[in-house]
């Protein structure tokens, strides 16, 4: 008889403890989140998380995504890099970059330092407009300002241009700045929230794959760590048999988890790119890149 009583009381005790724990956890949660976002601290914590998770990996190797996650993949990547499949897109981008528009101007006139070696400063927060400006958006705005039709954000021309601009910045560390403007802090926080928010019927967030399980496989692909995940953009993916811009990567990731993608360069994506680039500050640009 007493055995039975113990069992019942044990259950009571356990359920009470559980309720308490849930309450406590719930209580702590809002207290921490109420503080204003501190990007610098976030970036430090973000980097520490990954360097502790992959202690043997050199910091700059994170930009190689899945290829830094296992030896067999790394060898296949090195073989491809001898004569990388993005070579054609890079040459096309270089040619397009120097060809003047109908009005005689060219991309060099739209960008600081004639557009050479500046990719690491994008995206930046434009205080006049109060919004994040990404490289892809700036390129299309330059075209429109010179009477040229904008390119699709997910197709080859945009990939070729960004490939060339990335190439001219190879090795330069990401240098994303968040000005004191509260709207910049808000854009950064929107990007961070998007990154951690679960979406789509599969109920994944970017973090579910790229923070919780980098290096592991999801179906056929080895997942890249979130640290330095945009450094190699734009990428030639064997999967696509062609080039892909950051816009293409964001929209396809959404549909893979059965979420309806937003339009390329919508505010959410621009803020997401702002957050992801900021927390990868200091890591070298390695674009254009090849990926599985």
């Amino acid at each position, binding site marked *: 008889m007493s055995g039975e009583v113990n069992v019942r009381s044990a259950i009571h005790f356990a359920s009470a403890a559980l309720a308490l724990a849930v309450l406590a956890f719930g209580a702590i949660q809002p207290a921490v989140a109420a503080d204003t976002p501190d990007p610098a601290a976030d970036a430090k914590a973000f980097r520490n998380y990954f360097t502790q998770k992959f202690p043997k990996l050199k910091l700059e190797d994170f930009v190689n995504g899945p290829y830094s996650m296992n030896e*067999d993949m790394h060898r296949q990547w090195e*073989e491809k890099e001898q004569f990388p499949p993005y070579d054609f897109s890079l040459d096309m981008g270089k040619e397009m970059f120097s060809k003047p528009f109908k009005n005689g101007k060219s991309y060099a006139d739209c960008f600081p330092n004639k557009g050479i070696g500046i990719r690491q400063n994008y995206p930046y927060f434009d205080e006049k407009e109060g919004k994040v400006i990404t490289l892809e958006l700036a390129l299309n705005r330059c075209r429109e300002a010179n009477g040229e039709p904008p390119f699709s954000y997910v197709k080859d021309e945009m990939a070729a241009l960004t490939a060339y601009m990335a190439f001219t910045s190879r090795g330069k560390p990401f240098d994303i700045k968040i000005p004191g403007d509260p709207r910049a802090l808000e854009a950064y926080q929107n990007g961070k929230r998007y990154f951690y928010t679960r979406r789509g019927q599969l109920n994944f967030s970017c973090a579910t794959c790229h923070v919780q399980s980098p290096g592991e*496989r999801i179906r056929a692909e080895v997942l890249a760590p979130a640290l330095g995940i945009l450094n190699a953009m734009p990428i030639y993916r*064997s999967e696509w048999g062609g080039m892909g811009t950051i816009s293409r990567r964001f929209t396809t990731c959404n549909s893979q988890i059965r979420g309806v993608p937003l339009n390329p360069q919508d505010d959410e994506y621009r803020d997401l790119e702002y957050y992801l680039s900021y927390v990868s500050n200091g890591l070298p640009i390695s674009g254009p890149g090849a990926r*599985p």
Partner: protein
Amino acid sequence: MTTTHNDFPATRRLILQGAASVALVGLGGIAFGLAPAFAAANDKYPEEAFKQKSDADAIKSLYGKTAEPSDKVKLDAPEIAENGAVVPISVSSTLADVTSISILVADNPNALAASYKIPPGTMPNVANRIKMAKTTNVVAVVEAGGKLYSTTKEVKVTVGGCGG
């Protein structure tokens, strides 16, 4: 999960279409063979060998003899291909006077992927990137001094490279 039921018919339809398309292509292949004009243009091109299904038939059609396994043929291929559409494969050999190197993928729709003619003075090694339909054996064949030597390695493929 209620939603899976409406996925299932879609995938079944795709598989049926897939089967039909392969049959269709098979037909296309035969008609293809009948067009001598193409074959004549580059008679050295081993038309027949590229149409054989199995690696054994392809080797016989290409060289007219069978290969014996040899450790003098080195085949460098990944454990798990990052993507079946782009599998880096390299073959080298220490055999003397190599005249030809061929690479076959056993379970591809057509086994023979590539065949290289090595004139005297050219080193017996070649690297390239090929497509693999699924996990299967990659066979490297080297013709040296009139005899055939081969080596085989299984390459795991998680995403089929032939598409469709």
